[in-house]
């Protein structure tokens, strides 16, 4: 890319403004569609009513559907997309691997084992929710990887291999529990949860996720320059004054907590964390000061759009959103790969 800094700044600004506008529109659309169709105008008025800025005449039911059910769902979708895309960008840079994504450290596999333990084995005897089980499982996988890779000291390859081992182990545990103890209905529930579902998320989930993603963003921006310094590897970063081990441990921990929180709420939604960072990098370049906020916005847009698609392709039924992100994501990704082919 031969861009003058001013042109790169313009592109970044255009991307931020553009994706913000699309995000607002997409969230409004997502709130409008469903069994009860609600026009955009009503959606807007319902929100401003809620804040006390307007007092338009909207039916109680409509207001409740908008505020209590659909808006929280759309905002959680946006935050999940934002968090996953940002985690993907960080892990790709930190591990210097184009295939890295939020689940590379075995987190979704661990989460599924935790969820299955709660759903099928009844661990915690009802005192532990599925989300808590999944979160615990995700963190167990992360600790497993951290120990196996020597706290990230063994280099990127060792970390990735440890993640692969963790994923295999926890997937095997999940399959073992499902096949030995589960009935058909439970297996279906688990399957549905694994593919990702935004059903059932409400304001408490939004609040928790908003805090986690905001803190995550703050930490990641703080380390954005350090991530840039990893361009030529660990030793190069160290020779430019980066405390490689500390940066790595902090960022792994932050991405693990973000991913675990997201997975525990909505299941493992694939592809967003892999594709969005590549697409954004292609558009505005690799500098993390811009890349991370841009990933946040584009990831949010992508997930809200995927949610709209998942709810509107089939009458009366919602597709697992993980299926949509892959079905929509792969063609987009193919296009980017094609356009980004080497000029030689």
């Amino acid at each position, binding site marked *: 890319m*031969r861009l003058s800094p001013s042109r790169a700044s313009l592109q970044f600004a255009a991307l931020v403004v553009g994706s913000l506008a699309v995000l607002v529109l997409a969230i409004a659309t997502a709130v409008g569609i469903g069994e009860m169709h609600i026009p955009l105008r009503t959606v807007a008025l319902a929100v401003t009513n809620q804040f006390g800025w307007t007092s338009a005449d909207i039916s109680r039911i409509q207001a409740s559907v908008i505020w209590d059910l659909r808006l929280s769902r759309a905002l959680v979708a946006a935050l999940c997309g934002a968090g996953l895309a940002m985690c993907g960008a960080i892990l790709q*840079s930190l591990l210097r691997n184009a295939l890295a994504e939020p689940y590379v450290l075995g987190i979704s596999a661990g989460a599924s084992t935790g969820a299955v333990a709660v759903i099928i084995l009844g661990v915690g005897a009802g005192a532990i929710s599925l989300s808590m089980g999944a979160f615990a499982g995700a963190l167990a996988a992360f600790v497993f990887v951290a120990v196996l890779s020597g706290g990230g000291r063994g280099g990127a390859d060792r970390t990735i291999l440890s993640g692969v081992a963790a994923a295999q182990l926890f997937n095997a545990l999940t399959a073992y529990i499902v096949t030995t103890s589960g009935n058909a209905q439970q297996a279906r529930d688990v399957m549905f949860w694994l593919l990702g579902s935004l059903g059932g998320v409400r304001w408490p989930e939004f609040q928790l996720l908003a805090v986690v993603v905001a803190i995550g963003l703050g930490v990641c921006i703080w380390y954005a320059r350090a991530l840039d*310094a990893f*361009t030529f590897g660990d030793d*190069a970063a160290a*020779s430019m004054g980066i405390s490689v081990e500390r940066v790595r441990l902090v960022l792994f921990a932050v991405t693990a907590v973000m991913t675990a929180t997201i997975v525990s709420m909505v299941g493992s939604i694939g592809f967003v964390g892999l594709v969005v960072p590549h697409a954004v990098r292609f558009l505005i370049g690799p500098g993390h000061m811009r890349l991370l906020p841009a990933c946040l916005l584009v990831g949010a847009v992508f997930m809200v759009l995927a949610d709209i698609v998942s709810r509107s392709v089939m009458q009366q039924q919602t597709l697992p959103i993980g299926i949509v992100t892959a079905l929509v994501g792969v063609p987009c990704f193919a296009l980017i790969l094609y356009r980004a082919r080497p000029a030689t």
Partner: protein
Amino acid sequence: MSVRAENLVWRVGGKTIVDDVSFDVEPGRVLGLLGPNGSGKSSLLRLLAGLRRPASGRVLLDGTDIARSGRRELARRVALVQQHAATDVNVTVEDVVRLGRTPHRGPLAAWRPADTRAVDTALEQVGMTGFRRQSWHSLSGGERQRVHIARALAQQPRELFLDEPTNHLDIQHQLELLRLVSQLGLTTIVALHDLNHAAMFCDRLLVLHRGQVVASGAPAEVLNPDLLRDVFRVDCDFLRSDDDILRILYRK
């Protein structure tokens, strides 16, 4: 003394890679590190740059132990150009050189005029100003190596360490690069393979063999038939050219 190594030892898995190495370099001088493959040159450079902690011994910069200064502080005074520093990231020449400003900038600090000056000066010193907007991946090996040196210079170091910077370059670019490095006026420690180049461009040489120092001193003192036979396992003749530089001629 600008750089001083005292009894440096470094081990990996019970194997001693750097074995009791001591030397010092005066400010502004170029020290050449010689030795066959696996003699510990790269490991020694990593110890000197503070990337690895020695098992024992210490590195002093102007009399201060580098173990006592923080990573960032160290990176503002010492720069390292590695042997194989590659990337898949689509960066421009300017992006790479700007990385050299990392130790001078806080996590959220804005880009300052001093940073621009350092980057411009570094690009000019290596003659890559005209390439600044080019993609890193479009560069030749020699150009990439010069950009790495510019990145190191943007750190504004007083000491510059280079690990076989002429690897994979054609002879014209090898000579150009060494001329550039020797004229920077920085205290320089450079690992080299080519003995003739070492004789041409270095003020002093340090020869490593199996992690130990086997010879050190001015090129004319160090490079002699016995040493070359014992350490490098080659027989050679020596020639002293009109410009008073030692030339090594290898026998078949």
